[in-house]
């Protein structure tokens, strides 16, 4: 029987309950207490899921930005050696555009963040942007895997809650039937 990893990036795996009766008697918990504990666990998983979803959203927003930069740098590279200028309209302020002529160029400046801008050769800039794009995809993949793991734990916990609940209903019914028979 396959077992899943017991944790992933600090997220503990949800224990799988093979038999509800054994689970309750071994943990020594009342049904209600067990249900509350499971609900709390579920909430924690949901919280972690929301954090991961936010991270994914940020990364997904980064990808098109990098692609835009790449497209421009590639256009600049394609003009190299032709002696052609690029005419373009650029935004001065919201809704206000001015025209610029960009002569053939060998270098561009990349904004690296933290108030730093660095001049790169066009080819170097392209390589760097490609690398960034690749890294973004790798991080995204890692987050997707974390999310999948987390969702499995959510499903396990939900199923366990339903099973404990069902088991309890079943036990009550049995008890009621037994007392009904004895009083009859």
């Amino acid at each position: 029987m396959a077992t899943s990893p017991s944790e992933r990036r600090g997220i503990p795996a949800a224990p799988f309950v093979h038999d509800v009766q054994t689970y309750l008697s071994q943990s020594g918990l009342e049904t209600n207490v067990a249900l509350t504990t499971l609900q709390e666990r579920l909430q924690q998983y949901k919280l972690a899921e929301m954090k991961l979803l936010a991270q994914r959203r940020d990364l997904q927003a980064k990808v098109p930005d990098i692609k835009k930069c790449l497209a421009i740098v590639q256009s600049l590279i394609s003009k190299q050696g032709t002696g052609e200028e690029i005419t373009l309209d650029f935004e001065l302020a919201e809704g206000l555009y001015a025209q610029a002529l960009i002569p053939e160029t060998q270098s561009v400046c990349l904004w690296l963040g933290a108030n730093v801008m660095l001049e790169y050769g066009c080819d170097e800039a392209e390589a760097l942007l490609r690398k960034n794009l690749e890294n973004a995809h790798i991080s995204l993949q890692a987050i997707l895997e974390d999310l999948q793991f987390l969702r499995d734990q959510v499903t396990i916990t939900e199923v366990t809650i339903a099973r404990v609940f069902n088991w309890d209903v079943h036990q009550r019914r049995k008890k009621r039937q037994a007392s009904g028979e004895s009083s009859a």
Partner: protein
Amino acid sequence: MQQGEGNETEVTWEDQQNINTFGRLNNKFHELEDDIKLKKEMLENLEDASNELILTDEDVVRYQLGEVFCHMPKDEVEERLEALKEENQKELEHLEEEKDAILAQMANLKTILYGKFKDSINLEED
């Protein structure tokens, strides 16, 4: 997962894993649906742009590259649009294939899980 009549069917680790897989596939399915919708919109926009380009009398049009609008000869824009259309069309086909594969797997898991749990389990949405 439904909290049903309290029927006791034993749930094994294998069943649990099937349920997990089903949940994953269902999530993936919805993400794919969203992606496909976006791709289709993208393709429509590209198609619109191509049509406008045919109608226009301008020799030089402004083509958006990142944040700026490049003045570009009509022919070059046409080429770029065609290349983009082809790329997006391929991606769309890929997404559709993936969606079909996932639907098939989900149908398979449904047969297994409904077969075992009957109406104690609910795998439908809404």
